[in-house]
C-alpha cells in the first residue's frame, strides 16, 4: 500500500470508525455507507492534507479512483 492509499484509507477509517486495513482500491464508498456529501467532506479533508484541489466530478465511486486523482493532482 503506497502513502497516498494509506492516507486515504486512514481518512476513510476515521470517518466510518472502520478498519483501514479492510479498505482497498476496489472498495466503493457506498459499501462504507458513505453518501455523496460524506465523500465531499472526505475530499475537503484530503485537499487540506495534500494541499491540492480535487475535481469531485471525476470520482466514480471507488477508493482507487480517488487515489488516482490525488496522485495526478499531487504530481
Amino acid at each position, binding site marked *: 500500500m503506497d502513502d497516498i492509499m494509506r492516507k486515504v484509507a486512514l481518512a476513510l477509517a476515521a470517518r466510518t470508525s472502520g478498519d483501514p486495513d479492510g479498505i482497498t482500491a476496489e472498495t466503493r464508498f457506498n459499501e462504507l455507507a458513505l453518501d*455523496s*456529501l460524506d465523500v465531499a467532506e472526505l475530499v475537503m479533508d484530503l485537499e487540506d492534507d495534500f494541499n491540492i484541489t480535487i475535481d469531485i466530478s471525476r470520482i466514480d465511486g471507488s477508493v482507487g479512483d480517488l487515489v488516482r486523482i490525488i496522485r495526478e493532482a499531487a504530481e
Partner: protein
Amino acid sequence: MNILGIGSTLPEQTVTNRQLEEILETSDAWIRSRTGIAQRRVMKGSELTNLALSAAQKALLDAGLNGADLDMILVATTMGDYVFPSLSCLMQEGIGALCPAMDLHAACAGFIYALETADSFIKAGKAKHILVVGAEAITRLANWNDRTTCVLFGDGAGAVVVGAGEGLLATRLTARTDKDVLYMLAEPGNSPFTNQPDEAPAGVKMQGQEVFRFAVTQSIEDLTWVADIAGKALQEMDWVLLHQANRRIIDAVRQRLKLDPARVPGNIHRTGNTSAASIPLLLDELYRAGLLEPGQLIAMSAFGAGLVSGACVLRWGKEPPDKLTPAEDLFSLPVNITPET
C-alpha cells in the same frame, strides 16, 4: 446600524417528507439523512407579497415605527410575485410608505448583502430608517420532478427595520462567477427573432457536492474574517447563525470551527432552505423566544448561487419582546414530524 425591529412570516401550508414520498421516488429517511429537513412551508398561491408585507408589518410594530417613517425599502429576493414591478415596490403601498423601494438579488446571501447596503445608506446620511426584507418563494422555482433538489426548499419572509447605530461590527461580501454549480435559467420568451436556447429552463439545477464544498469552505473563511475584523474570536460569539441550506453543511462548519452546538441554532428541519429569508427567519425566532439579549454578539453567514457569500457580526441591542413565543426545537432534529391538521 442597529436593528430596531424584526418580524417574520411563514406560509400556512406545511409539506412533510411523508407527503413528498407520495409524489416522488424518495423517502423521509433519505431526505432527513442528507439534508436534516423534515418539513417545509410552501405557498399555496402567488402570495409572496403578502408574506413579505406581514413580516414587514411585524418588524415595524416591533420597532414602534410606521411605514411613513421609512426612507427606503430594500428586499432581498430571487424573484417576487412579478418580474416587475419589484417586490419592494409592491410592498410599499401595503405598509403605508412613500420612500424609494428596490429589490436586491444575491441569492441566499441576499439578506446580508441588503443589511450591508442599508448600513451604507445610513452611514452616508442618506436614510434614517430602512426596511430590510428577505423574502423568497423558492418552491415555485424548483423543479418538482427532480427529487434531489425540490425536497430542499421552503418559502418564507423575514424583515428588520434598521436605523443609526454601531451594531454592525463587521461585514464581508464575496462573489465569484461559477454558474454551473447552482443555477436556474430564465425563460427565453417567445420572440420570433430570437433563437431558442440550447438548454431549456428546468427549474433549479445544482451540483450538490460542489455546493457543499463551496458552502463549508466559504462560510468558514467568511466567519473567520468577520470575527477578526470585529476583534473577537468566533468562540466568543453568543450566536452563530448559518444559512439554513442543509443540516450537513451547518454541522460541517460548526465542527470545523469547533463551535459549541448550543450556540449554532437551526430551524431547517421545519423550514427547509428559504434562501434569502433563512437568516432573518432564524434571527426572529431567537428574538421572539427571548434568547437574544442586549450586548450579545451574533455572527451570521450565508452563501448561494453566483457564487456569492455574505457574513457579518452584529452586536444585538434590543431587549426581548414583552410577549415571548417559546422556541421550538432549535437545536436538534426531531425524530417524528407529522403533518399539521
